[in-house]
């Protein structure tokens, strides 16, 4: 049953990937940077009229091409991986269909010229994310996580909606290429802070940045390949893409960029610390994703446009790899909790090898792609100090410092997760069935992504000074982590008394729960108001009518003199009426 579907699923995805490649490769050379006149190609399919401003137009440039290739590659690999991972799953068919829908939506977002088209893709991605997170809808965490993911990203989406309104109002067009042209012209509009802040709200939701950061970790009950595709490589990175796409609009306002930088710094460190204390491999990876996305935003906020995009690409590769590794491990031992793991390097050598490459990239170890791209980010912050950057030098300093600290924390939690998963001995001893290497269809994508993690380095820039600094940090932090682990202590304990708070993820969810309670109370209030206040008047009117009706019927006593009394009194009163008037 599944085999037939799987062949077609992979086939269709492959065709889509090829199409994406055909579209993308010729445009890889259009790299004009953020401020240049749009160099990409604009294609119009349907023109939706002036009033609505919706048309089907495409704008493909270097940025789109990179994103397209990333999405297509990871998508195809995930489809292949899922054939084995979800073998025997009753809902495999809907699963693959939704993945394809997701890939179409992602492609729409990255190639859209019309902002409404982008919005459509943007939210369809959110829907697919929701549906795939709740793939195992029998499980309460999956249902809860899906709802949370949808609602929190929807907050951001509303920001995007209003941002698009504002762009339309300011620029008189909804075409991105025309907006960029307007920005590149000498008489570019000014006062774009509002638009910029609204866009920041949009990306905060989609990319799970502080303060809407919690949904991504809760999205982990979804199937692991989905985490790799949607919640690591593509959808969450769409926020970064959006900032990059409309970079001139955001960069026009220092306020916007400062806010973005602050959000990125807070998220970066916070998520890294949460990753350090998490007891679940997938949650560690999720928090690390949040943290790494913050790196990208940090880069963009200090003017490191290329660094941000490079880190997006490299992160897409190594985080997809890590999630697939986690999936492979979970597939083998049936759990994603770190305490259930350990010593898997023997049983799962290939997974171990590729996982090690992935963790190394996350930690920024030479010569993985993570090393280069993270250096680029930090270098752009360094460069922003004293040069003409979108933010004040002080902000750039903060970004640099926080980036370096986070790099150290990243090393520690990467080492912690890696060693708790693969080193020592635990899982094989505890597992009821023999743990063995994942099937070839799963290992294949791991190898491909591991190779990409190493080979993409060739395309990355290199800055010697920053490389030395970060390598020093990696060595020092790695040594610290190793010392702690070999002393038999969890590196999370390095946080000291703050550790329990981070383990509880700072109780951030209480806020959302509180909002939910408030909404439900308000709902009760509204229902009661409808019933007892608004509903009172018609009910009272009806009851009064019926009562009066009975009174009138009773007044028909049949007594002629009563009637004449009323008649005479009526004549008197009506006469008075005329006199008084």
């Amino acid at each position, binding site marked *: 049953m599944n085999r037939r579907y799987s062949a077609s699923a992979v086939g269709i995805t492959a065709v889509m990937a090829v199409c994406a490649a055909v579209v993308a490769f010729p445009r890889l050379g259009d790299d004009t940077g953020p401020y240049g006149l749009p160099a990409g190609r604009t294609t119009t399919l*349907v*023109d*939706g*009229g*002036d*009033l*609505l401003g*919706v*048309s089907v137009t495409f704008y493909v440039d270097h940025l789109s091409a990179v994103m397209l290739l990333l999405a297509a590659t990871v998508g195809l690999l995930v489809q292949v991986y899922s054939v084995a991972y979800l073998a025997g799953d009753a809902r495999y068919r809907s699963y693959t269909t939704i993945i394809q829908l997701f890939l179409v939506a992602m492609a729409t977002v990255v190639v859209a010229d019309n902002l*409404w088209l982008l*919005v*459509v893709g*943007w*939210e*369809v991605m959110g*829907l697919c994310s*929701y549906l795939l997170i*709740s793939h195992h*809808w*029998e499980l309460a965490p999956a*249902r809860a996580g*899906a*709802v949370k993911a*949808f*609602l929190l990203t*929807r*907050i951001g989406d*509303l920001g995007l*909606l*209003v941002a698009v*309104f*504002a762009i*339309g*109002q300011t620029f008189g067009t909804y075409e991105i290429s025309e907006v960029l042209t307007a920005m590149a012209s000498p008489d570019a509009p000014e006062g774009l802070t509002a638009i910029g802040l609204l866009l920041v709200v949009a990306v905060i939701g989609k990319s799970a940045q502080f303060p809407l950061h919690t949904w991504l970790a809760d999205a982990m009950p979804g199937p692991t390949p989905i985490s790799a595709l949607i919640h690591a490589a593509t959808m969450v990175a769409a926020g970064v893409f959006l900032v990059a796409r409309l970079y001139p609009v955001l960069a026009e306002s220092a306020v916007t960029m400062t806010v973005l930088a602050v959000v990125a710094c807070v998220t970066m460190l916070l998520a890294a610390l949460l990753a350090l204390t998490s007891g679940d491999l997938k949650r560690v990876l999720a928090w690390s994703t949040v943290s790494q996305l913050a790196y990208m935003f940090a880069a963009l906020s200090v003017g490191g446009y290329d660094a941000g995009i490079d880190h997006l690409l490299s992160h897409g590769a190594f985080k997809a790899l890590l999630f697939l590794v986690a999936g492979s491990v979970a597939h083998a031992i049936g759990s994603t909790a770190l305490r259930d793991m350990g010593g898997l390097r023997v049983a799962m050598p290939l997974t171990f090898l590729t996982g090690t490459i992935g963790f190394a990239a996350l930690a920024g170890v030479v010569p993985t792609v993570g090393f280069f791209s993270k250096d680029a980010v930090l270098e752009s912050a360094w460069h922003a100090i004293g040069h003409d950057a979108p933010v004040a030098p002080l902000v750039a300093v903060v970004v640099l410092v926080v980036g370096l600290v986070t790099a150290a924390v990243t090393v520690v939690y990467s080492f912690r997760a890696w060693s708790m998963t693969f080193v020592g001995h635990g899982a094989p001893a505890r597992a009821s069935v023999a743990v063995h290497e994942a099937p070839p269809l799963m290992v294949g994508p791991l190898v491909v992504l591991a190779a990409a993690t190493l080979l993409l380095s060739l395309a990355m820039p290199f800055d010697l000074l920053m490389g030395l600094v970060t390598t020093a940090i990696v060595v020092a932090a790695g040594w610290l982590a190793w010392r702690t682990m070999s002393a038999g202590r969890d590196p999370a304990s390095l946080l000291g008394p703050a550790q329990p708070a981070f383990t509880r993820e700072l109780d951030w969810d209480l806020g959302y729960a509180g909002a939910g309670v408030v*909404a*439900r109370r*308000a*709902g*009760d*209030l*509204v*229902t009661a108001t*409808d019933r007892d206040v*608004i*509903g009172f008047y*018609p009910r009272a009117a*009806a009851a009064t009518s019926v009562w009066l009706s009975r009174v009138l019927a009773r007044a028909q006593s049949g007594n002629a003199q009563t009637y004449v009394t009323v008649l005479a009194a009526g004549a008197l009163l009506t006469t008075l009426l005329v006199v008084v008037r």
Partner: protein
Amino acid sequence: MNGLVVALALPAVAALLLVVLRDMLTDRLAAWAGVGVSVVVAMLLLVTWVGGDGDGYVAEVDLVWVRSLDLHLHLGMDGISFPLLLMTALVTALVCWALVDDPPRGDNATPGLVGLLMVVLTASIGVFAALDLVLFFVFFELALIPMWFVIARWGDPHDPVGRRTAATRFLLYTVVGSALMLVGFVTVWALAGTVQIPELAALGAQLDGGWALFAACMIALGLAVKTPVWPLHLWLPDAHAKAPTVGSVLLAAVFLKLGTYGLLRVFVAVLPGPARDLAPWLGLLGVVGIVVASLACLRQADLKRLIAYSSVGHMGFVVLGIATLTEIGIAAAVFASVAHGVVTALLFFNAGSLKRRFGTAEISVLGRGMYARMPALAVVLAFASVASLGLPGLAGFWGEMMALRGTYEAAAGADGAGLGEALAAVLLVGALLGVLLTSAYFLRVLRRTLQGVPTPHDADTDLAGSERGIAIVLVVAVLVLGLVPGLVMGVVEPSIPAILGGAR
């Protein structure tokens, strides 16, 4: 032969024949006859529209009806009414189709029920096509009593008292409102000396001052009950919840649109000056409706009531769009009306299917894990919910988006907007909160019913027969409206000046 007149008369004749020949017809035959008539009506409307020269009103007829009162049989359609007309005919066809497999209770009751539905169809076409205020009013009222019978007779079989109460409440709310509206119409006549809508719209700007405001208030009250605008919405949840599926669908898809259409055609176009005075209030009530309805939805235990309340919210967007008095807002009103008709019809058909199976639409009774128990039904319900919560790319989004955009434009100080900048900004935030809450309650429904560990039930049977066909048609319609919004916008856009002409 004027296609519009034929489309108006055909269902009426069909209703008469159905009632007269009811003993000769089987249930299925009567239902198919209803489908046939509605489809023919839809075709006629389409052909007439396409054949129109696109200038002014298409298929306009203007015959003297009551000479001494200067009342005319004045009909015509333009870009505002045509989408609603077509939607009405199609939804009626689907409603009749649903009766094929789900005949009403009672011996050979379908001919009677389809006859009533045909009357409703005539009435709705009449309202959307009328260009004479009194004619508009006649058709506006014509649909009421048939609908009362539909709800009171074939409503919830488990609650005979409740369904009659709900039907009566629906009737009385609407009748009080519409009687006041008649007072408004007469006031307009007293001021302008005519009841022909095109003439009134032409001299719209001259109708101003206290009496015009009085007329506008009366008219707005009547239409607000129908739309419904908070706090005049109380008839709606009961009526929808207790009505049979066909009734709920028609109420939601067609009846509410009579109100919104009236707001456009009569309120804004005929009384632009007072409409501008009242717009802030209308907008405010619209947004309060959005928020309040979505909060109420969070606490509904009955699926049909929930969908009904969600209609209040969606109509809030329509009202908000109208209140902005911007071009985009007017377009939003029409688009959202059509989209709401299609999406909510799908939701109600689905809820009706469930109620037919389980005897109730209580979420707690329906059980969990419907994805596994009734996959097609569950997927359609999920699709409809997602469309209703306004996912871009589906029908529900564009109307909401345009209404919000109209509000944004007002907040940004667009010329001629009906809302002040500060108020518009507040309303925008409120409406956005409503959007978020809308997502929340629909996800709650999906989580409660479709997901979770399946609780198998004897009544679990997936969509079959006409249910399946209806779902397919509506899903396609939702997708088409969502993916090609320009289709409707192309029709609506040229007619917007006819509505806003006086207001500018």
